[in-house]
């Protein structure tokens, strides 16, 4: 196995041994998955809604170039500044540059996986900008020097008690401030409110961008997104280049399923659709159209970072993803090991396709093997991405690059040679049964040799039958005649 694969297996073992993590994961994924199921059950025609959302995303990806061009044109016409970042480094440089040129020392951020992906915070801190995460979960992640472990609920791996201890240690919180969740939330709110009022820059991600109007949409539950994008003078939005829909109607189609899939809500608490920066000219009692609030500058940084390479490949369908996290919550593997074990920014079934897709099979394809291909993810995807199919595509690519373990590469041609020759298959079956006779006790084998020992580490293996079915069936039929 390659070193990245071995490291992945070590992280899995560590996660499985972490009883507190396992409890926290079971509780929250169960709640989120249950909420999602109830929300879709309540829809008159859930399948039609998913179908519509998929259609909207598929039509965007089918001619991504022209939708992106249109989006950039419309956004620019409405006063936005559009930047193109081919790589993560480009994105870091562009955003650091915007801050530096304007002498910005403090930036507030709403939750954004794309900024995690490009490791923006470190770059900004390096450029002398203090960055404050304002999503409650991300705030806790930042305080703890941690990383998010779920796309939607970044501290799914933390208990309430963990957070209380962290607030006492890092914020000097009094016991009354951490007595319960409302008290802790109130404390975070007091700390963050001061930062919002002083920040020169607000940084957000983009849930979806609308090509026909040049609008960006972000959805949040805490209101921090609205403060981040309206209070500071400069708003920078980092947009993954696939997160586009052609029309406002398409946006509505995706929003119908997005929050339902993510948290089980019919709609998020805050849905912000922003079209350009604040239009100047609004005066008290004045006739001229303008906006009373909003940022003076709105910069939209469109991030590629490997996404466009997936167009036209077997993995292209993953570009439909709207990052709702539903596939994580139902995945029996994610539910056991959580997000950190996957080692990348995007975990779970979607991450196991996105990470090798964006960052290469050599380092990341092993993720796609951490799935029994049970298909639970496909059943809940709001845009009906065939995730098992994509996991198989990653596995195929990995096999072609000879990244499979040596024993599998050695065994595969032998297995194929046997299974494509019925006479040899029958012979091999008899030989295996004879061999197993020495290993078995009352029909079960307690310890298998070599790599197969991984099976008998946690369960017994049945001994092969002494009289295989097909041969026995024909013998019985012949005897009856």
């Amino acid at each position, binding site marked *: 196995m390659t070193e990245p694969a071995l490291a992945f*297996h070590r992280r*899995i*073992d560590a996660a*499985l041994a972490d009883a507190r993590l396992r409890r926290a994961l079971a509780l929250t994924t169960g709640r989120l998955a249950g909420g999602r199921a109830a929300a879709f059950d309540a829809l008159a025609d859930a399948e039609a809604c998913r179908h519509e959302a998929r259609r909207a995303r598929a039509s965007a990806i089918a001619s991504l170039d022209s939708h992106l061009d249109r989006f950039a044109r419309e956004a620019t016409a409405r006063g936005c500044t559009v930047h193109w970042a081919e790589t993560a480094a480009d994105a870091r440089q562009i955003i650091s540059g915007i801050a530096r040129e304007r002498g910005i020392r403090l930036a507030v951020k709403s939750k954004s996986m794309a900024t995690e992906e490009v490791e923006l915070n470190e770059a900004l801190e390096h450029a002398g900008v203090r960055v404050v995460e304002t999503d409650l979960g991300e705030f806790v992640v930042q305080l703890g020097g941690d990383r998010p472990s779920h796309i939607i609920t970044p501290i799914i791996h933390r208990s309430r008690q963990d957070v209380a201890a962290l607030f006492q240690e890092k914020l000097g919180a009094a016991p009354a401030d951490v007595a319960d969740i409302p008290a802790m939330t109130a404390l975070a709110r007091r700390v963050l409110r001061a930062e919002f009022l002083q920040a020169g820059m607000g940084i957000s991600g983009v849930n979806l961008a609308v090509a026909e109007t040049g609008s960006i949409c972000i959805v949040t539950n805490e209101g921090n997104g609205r403060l981040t994008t309206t209070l500071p003078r400069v708003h920078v939005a980092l947009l993954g280049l696939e997160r586009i829909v052609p029309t406002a109607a398409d946006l509505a189609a995706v929003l119908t399923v997005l929050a339902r899939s993510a948290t089980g809500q019919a709609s998020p608490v805050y849905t912000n659709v922003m079209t350009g920066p604040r239009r100047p000219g609004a005066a008290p009692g004045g006739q001229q159209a303008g906006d009373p609030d909003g940022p003076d500058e709105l910069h939209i940084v469109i991030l590629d970072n490997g996404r466009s390479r997936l167009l036209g490949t077997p993995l292209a369908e993953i570009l439909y993803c709207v990052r709702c996290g539903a596939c994580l919550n139902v995945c*029996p*593997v994610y539910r*056991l*090991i959580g997000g950190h074990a996957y080692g990348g920014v995007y975990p779970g079934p979607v991450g196991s396709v996105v990470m090798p897709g964006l960052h290469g099979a050599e380092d990341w394809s092993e993720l796609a*093997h*951490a*799935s*029994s*291909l*049970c*298909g*639970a993810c496909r*059943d809940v995807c709001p845009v009906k991405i065939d995730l098992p199919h994509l996991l*198989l595509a*990653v*596995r*195929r*690519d990995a*096999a*072609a690059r000879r990244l*499979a*373990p040596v024993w*599998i590469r050695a065994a*595969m*041609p032998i*297995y*194929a040679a*046997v*299974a*494509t*020759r*019925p006479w040899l*298959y029958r012979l091999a*079956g008899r030989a295996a*049964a004879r061999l197993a006779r020495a290993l078995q006790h009352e029909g*079960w084998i*307690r310890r298998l040799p070599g*790599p*197969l020992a*991984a*099976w008998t*580490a*946690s*369960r*017994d*293996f*049945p001994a*092969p*039958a002494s*009289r*295989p*079915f*097909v041969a*026995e*069936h*024909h013998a019985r039929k012949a005897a009856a005649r």
Partner: protein
Amino acid sequence: MMPRPARVQLFATCLVDQFFPSAGHAAVEVLERCGVEVLVPADQTCCGQPAFNGGFAEEAAAMARVTIDALSRSDDPVVVPSGSCADMIVNHYPELLEGDAAYGPKAKELAARTYEFCQFLVDVLGVDLPAAPPGPALAYHASCHGLRGLGLRDQPRRLLRAVTGGRCADLPDAETCCGFGGLFAVKMGPLSGAMLDAKLEAIDRSGADVVVATDVSCLMHIGGGLHRRASRVRTRHIAEVLAGQGHD
């Protein structure tokens, strides 16, 4: 619905053939009891799913061609006592052999006449099986590929309800994967083992004496876990239950 077929071919699957022949014999018995003649093509081997799921498409395609040949000597419907292997033939063969001028069309033709065992009994034959005398408490585990690949949801439950007189309930979390996943169980042994632990806990909670499923692959996994833990609970393929072999 197709006219009621008088004859079918049984694709037993390599696991039934080599490890669980009683499930194959039971499937034949149930089908014959329903008045259907059963052919068992002698040159059947493995459908190729382990290679397919491992990413070895060429090897999988070679096995698919052999299976297609074995099942295309007659155009009788094919019945498979496994949702997973039926799913492989129905949903993956056509895709796997798409670019193959000779076998691509054959794959589609075979896919169209291939059924999982319960699907065939309920959807094609529309059978009504007589109720069996009260037996042990049964719990049903829904195997993933049949459930999600073939939409096998009501058929096994209907059959079990009928023959057991309601003595068969769903396991708690019946539709959660047991962690088998073919090579996954070996390649990702600890993960697969942890998924199995959760399944075994659910079986414990259910109070069932026997776990029933449509796939011997899951039952081999669950049964191996039960045996390691010296559990009194047994596993049975659904064909065995329908043939009246719910007991030891």
